């Protein structure tokens, strides 16, 4: 196939052509820059936290600064990195390419979300310079300013809702002829499930945050125990969003690796329907389990039982995926490149993180672990371990798609190993700290926790170093990387049917889909690859 139109990167010049673009690919690139910057910022705060915890007493900052640091780290990483990262970058870039469409359904709304992200980020970060925890009544009685953080989170949530809404409509209405639901790439299925959660859960958080703000500003007493309010109600509402939000962060990761594993094993997924529908299953059942965060809060024994047993079912959907990804390797043709190494990292971390999650929702065990470093380690296994590994897998896999250049494979493999080792060194000690009973958000700690904290900080340095290497060789590759060609991996995902980088309008004419994605059964005429 030949394309006459220029690629999206140099079709137009000048900053204006970027800031006002309606092209989903350019919006994705803008998000890439913003989200990576947010990640660097959040990572910087993480390192400061780890440094502070190097010794039992005060190390480099006072308690107030430490409070700000962990709030900054948490809010930046979740709202500015985890939630937007994969949907806003890869989702934006790839959905239309995978669906055979020219753009997402609402390009203007898409651009609008970028600005919501910027505004929300600015307000939230500014507010968090004096931030605190969200939990009432702490958040409504603390002297520090919480309102800007709440407002910032509200705006970011709005962006998240609009992105999800846009994706759902796109998937429903802009599929190319022949692209039936059962031929959709698994990436699209998982994005669809993610979007459903974003649309249905985020408003609950938005309203809850507004109520806290109203409470703080006017003292209406809706969560205020002194006026008959119920602080546990706040926790219910908070977790009604925040538990599904975990799936907003991890489903896109599953989306990415479902593509990566098929491309690098050159094999169709084992159990397409199981993987596709388990995404929807996670999205649905994920809404029924929020109460497992409240086992020690004063929630009733009865409610804890309901939430406890339902939590066991949500783990099943992840288990199905893990087994099916593993089985996909069977009789494949596996090429161990950097994205595949990250896929393995993802698979293992998701499995161990997920199993510790099941352990945590085992009601009586949670009583010991709730609000300890075990929980911290668990969700970092899911978020850093699974989501960031998948993000890196996707970034390496689609880097040539987005920019037309190859990075240095040797550096990439070295960095991948470093990141995975550093990750383990950081968070395995935190599981043990949790077992010992070290609570979260501790500024200082008794001496029995010292050695494991030192190990964790050492691991974090390794991890940070690994990320810096990744950033360095990727940036370098933009300048002098080898030109990748349209399909360097020999992948049969739909998105590789376009040139790399794609042209402005994606396809010269609406394509007609005649085969499933990642069908490697027969040799195709004219198929070439540069890899391996």
């Amino acid at each position, binding site marked *: 196939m030949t394309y006459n139109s220029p690629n999206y990167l140099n079709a137009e010049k000048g900053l204006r052509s970027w800031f006002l673009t309606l092209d989903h690919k350019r919006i994705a690139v803008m998000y890439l820059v913003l989200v990576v910057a947010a990640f660097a910022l959040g990572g910087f705060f993480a390192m400061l936290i780890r440094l502070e915890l190097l010794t039992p007493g005060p190390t480099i900052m006072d*308690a107030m600064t430490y409070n700000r640091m962990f709030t900054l780290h948490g809010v930046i990483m979740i709202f500015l990195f985890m939630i937007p990262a994969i949907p806003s970058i890869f989702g934006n870039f790839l959905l239309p390419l995978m669906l055979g469409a020219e753009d997402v359904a609402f390009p203007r709304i898409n651009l609008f979300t970028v600005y919501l992200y910027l505004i929300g980020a600015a307000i939230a970060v500014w507010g968090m310079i004096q931030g605190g925890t969200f939990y009432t*009544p702490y958040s409504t009685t603390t002297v520090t300013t919480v309102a800007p953080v709440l407002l910032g989170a509200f705006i970011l949530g709005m962006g998240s809702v609009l992105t999800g809404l846009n994706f759902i409509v796109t998937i429903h209405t802009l599929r190319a002829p022949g692209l039936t639901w059962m031929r959709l790439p698994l990436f699209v299925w998982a994005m669809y499930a993610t979007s459903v959660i974003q649309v249905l859960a985020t408003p609950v958080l938005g309203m809850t945050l507004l109520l806290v703000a109203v409470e703080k500003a006017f003292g209406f007493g809706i969560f205020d125990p002194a006026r008959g309010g119920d602080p546990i109600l706040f926790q219910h509402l908070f977790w009604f969003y925040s538990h599904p939000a975990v799936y907003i962060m991890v489903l896109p990761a599953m989306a990415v690796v479902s593509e990566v594993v098929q491309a690098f094993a050159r094999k169709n997924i084992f159990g397409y329907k199981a993987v596709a529908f388990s995404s929807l299953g996670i999205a649905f059942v994920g809404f029924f389990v929020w109460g497992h965060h409240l086992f020690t809060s004063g929630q009733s024994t009865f409610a804890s039982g309901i939430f406890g047993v339902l939590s066991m079912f949500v*783990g*099943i959907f992840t288990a199905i995926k893990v087994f099916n990804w593993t089985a996909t390797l069977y009789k494949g*043709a596996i090429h161990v490149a950097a994205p595949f190494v990250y896929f393995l990292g993802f698979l293992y971390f998701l499995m161990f993180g997920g*199993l510790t999650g099941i352990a945590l929702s085992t009601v009586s065990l949670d009583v010991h672990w709730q609000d300890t470093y075990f929980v911290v380690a668990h969700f970092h296994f899911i978020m850093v371990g699974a989501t960031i590994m998948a993000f890196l897998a996707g970034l390496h896999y689609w880097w040539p798609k987005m920019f037309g250049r190859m990075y240095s494979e040797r550096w990439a493999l070295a960095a991948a190993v470093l990141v995975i080792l550093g990750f383990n060194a950081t968070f395995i000690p935190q599981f043990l700290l949790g077992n010992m*009973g070290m609570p979260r958000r501790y*500024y200082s700690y008794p001496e029995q926790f010292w050695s494991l904290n030192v190990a964790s900080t050492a691991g974090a340095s390794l991890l940070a170093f690994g990320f810096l290497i990744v950033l360095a060789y990727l940036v370098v590759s933009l300048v002098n990387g080898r030109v990748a060609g349209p399909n360097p991996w020999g992948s049969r995902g739909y998105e590789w049917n376009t040139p790399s980088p794609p042209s402005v309008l994606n396809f010269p004419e609406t394509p007609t889909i005649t085969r499933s994605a990642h069908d490697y059964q027969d040799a195709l005429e004219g198929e070439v690859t540069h*890899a391996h």
Partner: protein
Amino acid sequence: MNEINEFLRNLLFLPKQASEYARSIDHLHFFVFVSSMIGAWTVVATTLVFIVRYRRRRALQTTEHVDPKPIQEAVFVGVPLALFLAFFAIGYPQYVTLQTPPKDASDVYVMAKKWMWKFAYPGGPNSTDVLRVPVGRPIRLLLTSRDVIHSFFVPALRLKQDVLPGRYTQTWFQASEPGRYPIFCAEYCGLGHSAMLGELVVMPAGEFDSWMEQQRRTNHAAAQDEQPIASEDVDFRGNLLEQGRRVAVVQGCFKCHSVDGSQHVGPTWLDLYNRKVKLEDGRSVVADEAYLTRSMMEPNAEIVAGYKPVMPTFQGKLSAPEAAAIVEFIKSLRTDAATPEPQKGPIYVPVSGK
């Protein structure tokens, strides 16, 4: 069995088990840990075998189309689900146990505030940051907070309960190993969160009894464990009954209520506690703490048969501790002199065997 227990406990860095409950929690923990690890490492090993066995041999290699059999997917779902539900089936009854204090447990009130723990024994002493309990007896904790949410956490007991402002939560334990164990606050509560440390001291029962006895006898400053706090109202703490009598005098309760069984404007207080009282509207209630306090706050809601609704409300005139003190005083007014001061201290039912 004990060796395995100790080995796994040390492997997982778990603290000493200070109660039978903690032991049973750990056993579930070990089961979850071992079964999860077997499952996870099986998957890891499988992937590694596949990677070596099915490595790519040439570029653009084609592969066979493999679809799952229904039985395979059923196994993928069934095996983990059975295991997870087993976790729940073991774990939930343990949680129910933790949430349901036994009837014979003795109460200790726990009050959290930024950033300290206060413990109070009914009719007995108070202490700050140090909770003393006897070994082998069930202790129920009733927890409340003065400011924000805290969380009472004793790793050695595998026990944690959030402490809410303006209301009460409960939990209980029965320590089996004498010793000193740290208490942490597990819910972020401000700058001093990580300094909000306490200590649980589990004492042999006899030692505890004599300690309690000594605390009761020695009044005032000595009642305060460790550092006494100047602002403490030692008078009130010293003798609840005396406080109750004094409040009753000041508030003029005796203008209408007698303490010797004689008739007056209102019912006598003698033997009132726990008596079945017939009400004006035909119902009858037991005059427990609830009823007594209600009668002070909403006197006309439940009028005793044969009396007129003339009592004013004491809502706002009596503080919560004053009302509680009056109730304690009423409870002490009993003709069966066997236990003239029933609420002098916690009543412990010794547990046999320990």
